[in-house]
């Protein structure tokens, strides 16, 4: 009896709820608002991300949060690979250009080979990376900038050129280890590879004379000026004073601008000192300190007066 009445009452309650509905104006309002909303990107997280049913929505949301970082990790990995590749290749390519541009009278072939070997050891994975070389050295070093001072017998370019051969060596070895391990191991790391000239164009191809060289910028720009000064500094750091002087001569033509000429003057002091023209370096340094006593560069120039110390020179040459 009572059970039936309860059922009846419940049915009435549910029926009352069923009959209820929104005002008709709401439909128009909702449609208007919905039309004004621009569709959202698929991966944007929002209320509807969990709007598939209270239980499955949570699973879906969890899945999305797991997937999103996975995608992010891939992107991050790609970016890190590109950045590391660029960082590793850039200084090497520039140095290769600097070394090949100028002969290095003060450097023996053996030590140059060691330097090249050390550089190759620093960058073991470089030839594997697909990252293109930064074009900076080529654009800033026109062909005319590489005068007759280039000495083909200087070991540095050769040792650099032999890098690709050594770099692909592990690959060759892994492929031919069982058949003929000898040819691959026959080349000690420090000796220039005999077939180095035939090596495929690797990261050091910038040092090849046949490499395309861009003409200097028609109008001097600060970035090109900075680029030249950077190369000069790198040459000095590599104890390539002659190369630095050639670059400084080129800089003094004003082709790249003159806004950093004070910096260039000090670099010339350092370059002169590096090639052993100490007297000239000191004279120039005195003149610089006299003319620019308040310049922050005066201190650097000062260090070359009263008998320039090569150790100090190297320190001050480093940026």
């Amino acid at each position, binding site marked *: 009896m009572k059970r039936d009445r309860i059922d009846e009452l419940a049915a009435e309650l549910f029926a009352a709820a069923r009959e209820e509905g*929104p005002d008709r104006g709401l439909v128009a*309002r909702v449609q208007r608002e919905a039309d004004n909303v621009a569709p959202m990107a698929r991966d944007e997280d929002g209320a509807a991300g969990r709007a598939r*049913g209270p239980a499955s929505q949570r699973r879906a949301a969890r899945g*999305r949060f797991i997937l999103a970082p996975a995608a992010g990790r891939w992107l991050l990995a790609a970016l890190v690979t590109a950045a590391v590749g660029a960082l590793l290749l850039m200084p090497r390519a520039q140095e290769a250009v600097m070394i090949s541009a100028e002969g290095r009278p003060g450097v023996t072939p053996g030590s140059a080979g060691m330097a090249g070997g050390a550089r190759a050891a620093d960058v073991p994975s470089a030839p594997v990376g697909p990252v293109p070389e930064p074009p900076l050295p080529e654009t800033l070093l026109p062909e005319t900038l590489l005068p007759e001072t280039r000495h083909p017998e200087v070991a540095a370019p050769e040792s650099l050129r032999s890098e690709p051969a050594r770099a692909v060596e592990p690959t060759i070895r892994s492929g031919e280890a069982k058949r003929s391990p000898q040819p691959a191991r026959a080349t000690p790391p420090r000796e220039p590879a005999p077939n180095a000239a035939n090596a495929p164009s690797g990261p050091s191809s910038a040092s090849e004379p046949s490499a395309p060289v861009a003409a200097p910028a028609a109008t001097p720009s600060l970035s090109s000026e900075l680029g030249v000064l950077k190369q000069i500094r790198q040459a000095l750091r590599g104890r390539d004073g002659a190369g630095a002087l050639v670059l400084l001569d080129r800089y003094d033509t004003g082709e790249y601008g003159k806004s950093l000429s004070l910096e260039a003057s000090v670099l010339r002091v350092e370059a002169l000192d590096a090639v052993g023209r100490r007297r000239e370096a000191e004279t120039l340094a005195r003149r610089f300190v006299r003319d620019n006593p308040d310049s922050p560069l005066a201190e650097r120039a000062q260090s070359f007066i009263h008998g320039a110390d090569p150790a100090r020179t190297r320190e001050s040459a480093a940026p």
Partner: protein
Amino acid sequence: MLLAVIKVFGRGHGAGVRSATERPDSDTAAPSADLSESLPDVPARDFSALVRAEIDFVWRQLRRLGLSRADADDATQQVFMVASRRRSELVVGKERSFLYGTAVRVAANVRRSLQRRREVAEPSVESPLDAASPDAPLPDELVERRRARALLDALLEQLPAELARVLVLAEVEQLTLAAIAELEGIPAGTAASRLRRARAAFRELLERHPASAERSEP
């Protein structure tokens, strides 16, 4: 190598989108083909039709989820705005699931914010202005129904939320167990047991309520 990384990344991303959209299907028995193929953006015309078809359902759910008429109006608007923003994710045939899930969430948010402001003394009480539509029933009936709804909401309020939702879908919307299971995103067996428990609990609450005592002595 970089290209390969990008390729892998792209593939992983696509798989993520697809699995996210396919996931609801894993609850229902129907094994589906690649749903990303059948996921065109819902055109504006179809979306208007969707609004007209589902607005009553959404609004009623919001009301039974404890919102006043005015709040249900606002929440309905919110639900359809979300749906409109995410049109591209609306799977044909599953729009109601999407709307229902969104409504449950929006209602919870509204109630939370109302409670935070301590403005919700009796969320389900209807104001006299609520029945201002031209085809409104006679005042007596109106009062009766309004009281009935207030009682229903009071009782539903005392049930666990998941039981109350299943009960409303079954008794108010008169949906099948399969439909309830799909909307709730739960297996059909779970839906059945929840409905059983919900009915029993509701009856018990109703029996204890003074309204049933009134009814029992005519």
